[in-house]
């Protein structure tokens, strides 16, 4: 039975559990729901969960364990020293699995009869070619050991599949039977179901952790590789960023970091007041109709692709700032600048602050506003002194989100601020950010195994650590100043 089919069967059993659990609970109290500990629906769900979850767990375990067990069994086909070596074993097993799967495909496609697949040997002509004909790519010609191992693998796998189906079904039926046995009026079905839901909730929140682990893992090894090619100290404290094709690049982080912080700062100076004032106006001053029109409109800004904003920065904002501010004040003549990118990113981030903050402000209970108005406070005083402090944690969250987007923005910076890595105080100078360089180093033309490319991972890691620090700081601020209403 294929895994897919097995899961469908489990689904059917779960439905059975649902119906039977409910029926059993009701009959145990002669239909008098008041005598049930929990609502009948909970008994139903309990039945479904018990039929499905344990069996699913068994299935998952089996799916993980089976390859390991089979691998152990195949040790005889290969020389011990080859098999002991981890990386060689992995390659060998990959080969074996590919050939075995190839044989399966060939049988399914009718290119081989099942008997042929079991008995075929290298002597019967190129296995690679025959499998290639049915669309299975093999890197090289199949060796006799691999072929034998693959055939043995197939045999073991089919036995395994049978065992898997039997064990899983037994688990499902046992779960179902258990659920029905313990189902009676006093059984705390709700607590059980809620415990499962809680488990699901916990699982969901570990996704975030797993994502982080994934990100760190996928960048760490390359970062380490980078540090073996380029002194990490020079990377962290270097003042010049000048990669080149000939090698001997200078890959100093600081100019990029400075650009990142500077541009984000400008962006936040634009986005935070604008976003907050927008939110305040919408939540406190605007009529519901105005609000229900303007809020979605502003949210459209968040959906405009950043390329468009990038072009806007490049074609409109850049020259405008250059001709009206930079040149008259003698601050430079660069069309692309920190200011340009910062302004445009700021605008792009307005909806993130305005919409989220608006919701939070709206959630502050009316009684607090009444309390303040009743004392003769103006709306603005109420907002500043009562509502904003009460809404602080949410607002900080919104600001952090906007800041995060500013730090992570690529397109606008490339077009608006240029690609020049520079350490400069002048906001009308072209600069660039870490994110831009991550993208450009990753997608360029140089070979992958060079420090010029790998530095992208080191940049990613460093950015990760830096933003972590910023976030810890923000959490501390919120803890210190939050005001919990009611």
């Amino acid at each position: 039975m294929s895994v897919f089919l097995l899961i469908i069967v489990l689904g059917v059993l779960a439905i059975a559990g649902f119906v039977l659990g409910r029926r059993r609970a009701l009959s145990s109290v002669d239909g008098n729901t008041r005598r049930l500990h929990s609502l009948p629906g909970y008994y139903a769900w309990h039945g479904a969960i018990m039929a499905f979850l344990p069996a699913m767990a068994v299935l998952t375990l089996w799916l993980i364990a089976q390859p390991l067990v089979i691998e152990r069994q195949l040790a005889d086909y290969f020389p011990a020293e080859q098999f002991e070596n981890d990386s060689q074993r992995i390659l060998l097993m990959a080969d074996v699995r590919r050939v075995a799967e190839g044989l399966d495909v060939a049988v399914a496609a009718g290119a081989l009869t099942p008997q042929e697949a079991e008995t075929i040997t290298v002597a019967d002509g190129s296995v690679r070619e025959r499998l290639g004909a049915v669309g299975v790519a093999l890197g090289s010609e199949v060796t006799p050991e691999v072929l034998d191992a693959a055939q043995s693998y197939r045999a073991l796998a089919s036995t395994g599949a049978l065992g898997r189906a039997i064990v899983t079904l037994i688990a499902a039926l046992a779960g179902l039977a258990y659920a029905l046995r313990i189902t009676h009026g006093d059984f705390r079905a709700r607590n059980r179901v809620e415990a499962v839901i809680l488990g699901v909730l916990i699982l969901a929140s570990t996704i975030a952790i797993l994502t982080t682990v994934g990100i760190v893992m996928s960048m760490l090894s390359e970062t380490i590789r980078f540090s073996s090619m380029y002194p990490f100290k020079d990377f962290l404290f270097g003042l010049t960023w000048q990669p080149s094709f000939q090698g001997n690049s200078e890959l100093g982080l600081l100019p990029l970091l400075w650009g990142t912080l500077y541009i984000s700062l400008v962006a936040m100076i634009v986005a935070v007041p604008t976003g907050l004032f927008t939110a305040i106006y919408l939540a406190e001053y605007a009529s519901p109709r105005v609000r229900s029109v303007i809020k979605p409109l502003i949210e459209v800004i968040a959906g405009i692709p950043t390329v468009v904003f990038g072009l806007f920065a490049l074609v409109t904002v850049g020259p405008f700032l250059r001709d009206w501010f930079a040149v008259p004040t003698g601050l430079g003549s660069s069309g692309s600048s920190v200011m340009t990118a910062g302004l445009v990113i700021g605008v792009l981030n307005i909806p993130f602050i305005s919409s989220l903050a608006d919701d939070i402000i709206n959630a502050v209970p009316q009684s607090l506003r009444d309390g303040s108005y009743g004392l003769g406070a103006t709306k603005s005083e109420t907002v500043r002194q009562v509502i904003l402090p009460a809404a602080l944690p949410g607002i900080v969250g919104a600001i952090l989100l906007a800041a995060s987007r500013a730090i992570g923005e690529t397109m606008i910076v490339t077009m608006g601020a240029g690609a020049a890595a520079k350490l400069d105080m002048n906001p009308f100078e072209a600069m660039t950010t870490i994110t831009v360089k991550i993208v450009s180093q990753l997608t360029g033309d140089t070979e992958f195994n060079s420090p010029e490319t790998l530095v992208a991972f080191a940049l990613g890691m460093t950015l990760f650590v830096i933003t972590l620090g910023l976030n810890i700081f923000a959490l501390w601020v919120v803890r210190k100043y939050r005001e919990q209403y009611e």
Partner: protein
Amino acid sequence: RDNVQITGSSTVLPYSTIVAEAFGENFDFPTPVVEGGGSGAGRAKMCEGVGTNTVDIANSSSRISQRDLDTCAANGVTEVMEVRFGYDGIVFASDVNGPEFAFTPADLFNALGAQVAKDGAIVANPHSMWSDFNSAMPAQEILVLSPGTKHGTREVFDERVIYEGCKATGAYDLFLAVAEGADDKAKARAAKGECTKLRTDGRNVDIDGDYTETLARLEADKKAIGVFGLSFYQNNTDKLRVGTMNGVVPSTESIAAGDYPVSRPLYFYVKLAHLDVIPGLQEYIEFFVSDDMAGPDGPLAEYGLVSDPELAATQDMVANRTPMGPLN
């Protein structure tokens, strides 16, 4: 998987899509999927291994390196075919309403080098006008939009223009004189490194994006000189005025004839292990290098590809599935 998957250079991308599209129309195979993303990234993807969840072809605007080949081999990609199918010209162009420019490598080096030779000494680049160092050039402020350091184009730009210009102005010799290094080779390398350092005072702007960005920047700042691919220029002749290099106007003909110096070969790399596995792969590469496509009158040439004079040899190689030998 029943479609061919191609990834790699954004320079080769348009050629690749033109071929893929025609291939899809004229054959019963599905149209290949072609990705951009850069030559280096493309080769890295190709070298990830063999199997249907890896790509079949990597486009590249520069030649593969031994290091990449080693990675390939380590991942089981032992047989790779290198197909050179033409050349890409690189042109220098300014706003169509601006003055004419006639460049030499020396001019560009004088305009862009971080340090240049002046009166027999190395000085930090003092030039702010093109006419500062060459009175034949327009009295216009220097501003060059050069390709970003991660682009293949930059390498050609460095090698064929800046480095040549560095030699021509005598700056190279001056650099060599003060260069540090264990032996002559190291010294030469150091001097070359000095040559290709470009000024960072804003007169040289690296463009990390594509040619459209360069064009948009040029329209935002009309005094700029942009570096473009020949095909891009040919599609935008109404906005750009191309400069000559050593007196030669860039065109497919002048590049094919070897008169215009700034060009580079374009390649794609085929994973031979996939040839009989992925339906249509063999047909696709044969179609690509056929005269109907890559020939001098084919659509690729029409789009701006400089056809490879040795195309016939390439066609043979593709038909024979000759893997590439070790790099020399």
